[in-house]
């Protein structure tokens, strides 16, 4: 998932992680880093309003996949695709 942080924040993964973990960040929603996609799915399933980032091959029907610019994963031009 490193490329997602790099793509969205325009910094390296480590820099991005530091920014998101910074306690002085003026935002109420916490950012949680967990060790597996299964954990992300579990947390998102049980936390209304939570948004998670997972590899598309780990999705289940217990979560809703959000469209980005009206595109689902595998749609032409879907943005969260990278090396």
């Amino acid at each position, binding site marked *: *998932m490193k*490329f*997602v942080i790099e793509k969205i924040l325009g910094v390296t993964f480590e820099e991005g992680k530091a920014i998101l973990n910074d306690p002085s960040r003026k935002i109420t929603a916490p950012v949680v880093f967990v060790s597996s996609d299964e954990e*992300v*799915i*579990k947390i*998102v*399933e*049980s*936390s*209304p*309003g*939570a*948004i*998670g*980032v*997972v*590899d*598309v*091959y*780990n*999705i*289940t*029907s*217990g*979560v*809703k*996949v*959000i469209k*980005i610019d009206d595109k*689902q*994963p*595998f*749609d*032409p*031009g*879907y943005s*969260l*695709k*990278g*090396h």
Partner: protein
Amino acid sequence: MRGIMRIRNPFLYAIVALVITGAGAAAAGAQAQEPATGANAAADAAPAADTVPVTTSSADARLDYEHALLYHEDLLFVDKGLVSLRKAVKADPHFALAHAMLAYFTSDPMEERREYALAEKYIAKASPDERLLVRWIDGAKNGGLVPAIAAMNDLLAKYPNDKRLANMAAEWLCSNQAAYEHGERILKNVLQKDPTYFPALNNLAYCYALSGQPSLAPPLMDQYVAALPAQPNPQDSYGEIMRMLGDYPAALEHYSKALQIDSSFNTSQVGLASTYALMGDQQRARVEYLKAIAGTKERATKLDYRILWAMTYYRENQLERGSREFAKLAVEAHAADLPVEEAEIHRDMALFNPDPRAALRDLDAGRQVLTENHEISQGSREIELANILQTRAFITERAGMADATQKALKPLTAMSQTSRSNLVQQSYHSANGAALMTEEKYDDAIPELMEDPQNPLSLTLLAEAQSKAGQPVDAQKTLTTLAAISDERVETAFAVPQARAALKENSVTGGQAGGH
């Protein structure tokens, strides 16, 4: 033997999904959608058995279905598996899961379309978990990938001990989706629970070979062969793996052993023939292909093997003879109402046609077939049309016909904006790369061509683009990747010998890669 023949993907990428709470929503758009259950709900609800239930009113149909999976999935007697599935749907015409499996496994486009329609018609009679299974296999083949993946993962969570289900999922992930890590994880998990479940051993070896870890595959094959000495598929798989690795003598040896065990194991017969073809012994290849053609009753498979037979003439540069044989096959494909094969035959002829304008007429003939009224799925029609347009872009770029390259790109661009098929997307990127090359925009062409890393035509263009963009090391790497491809595709037959010759020339002259 294992699934659809693919090559190693040297430019892997990941797709991530943003997910929020909301059960059932991942499957939006899926037909026969269940009330929202959620993966954990699915996992928590204890299944009545270790395996996905099978709903049929007929004991005979159930037995035939079980035989079909044993033959097709475990022992890889593919034709026998299809015959058993046909018997199952005959014994119980309302057997939705058997209709869906038949649609998934058949090579006959008419049968595929008919059986999917029947699976949909009778799906309401099946259990909720069978409906999930149908949603997965339908989505996997017809482009509804998000609900398909969600359904697959729900089933894997609910039936952690269903080895065949896990094996099928991993095979799809490795062979069709290039999702190697996921496939490997599932297979290792299966083998940890049951080291004697040999179909998983077989698939894990293929997964390693496809994912660029080829040295891990032969030891698994040794185990597979030792465990099932009386079965032909372990030897057949070993042969195919060795052929993928470019060790043709070892491939011949294993295919021959498979045929000694069971002379009717036809995938080894065609494997033997194709290995001779790749080695350059076209006369022997033709003899062996004829045996394979006689050995199958599946009409689409028979035609596929006949295409491989005819291709041997192109391989030995007998272009007129090759075109004559292919023209005959086109007539036969038309008479047999196999339009995808007919269009493919015209595309093959175009690639080997030395006159670019005549090649474009071949491609027009292929495109014409796809506009006619045939019983084929929209997905199959779309993919073949994308292949034709991609080939058109390649041929015209090579011939310096820049306007014609743009003309090929235009309809592909339109298709790429609506199609979720990876293959259509890859064809678009390849054609766009070709079009950028006609404008000498090599830096822009490179990332486009890298989006289609499994196609020898795209790799040919990529090596040249890299060379012209001043990236000789990358160009040489691409050429080496291309030269190492050992499979039966027409693009391989066309492009790989040229790549090998270019590499040889480079090693002699110390020159740069990619020139033609």
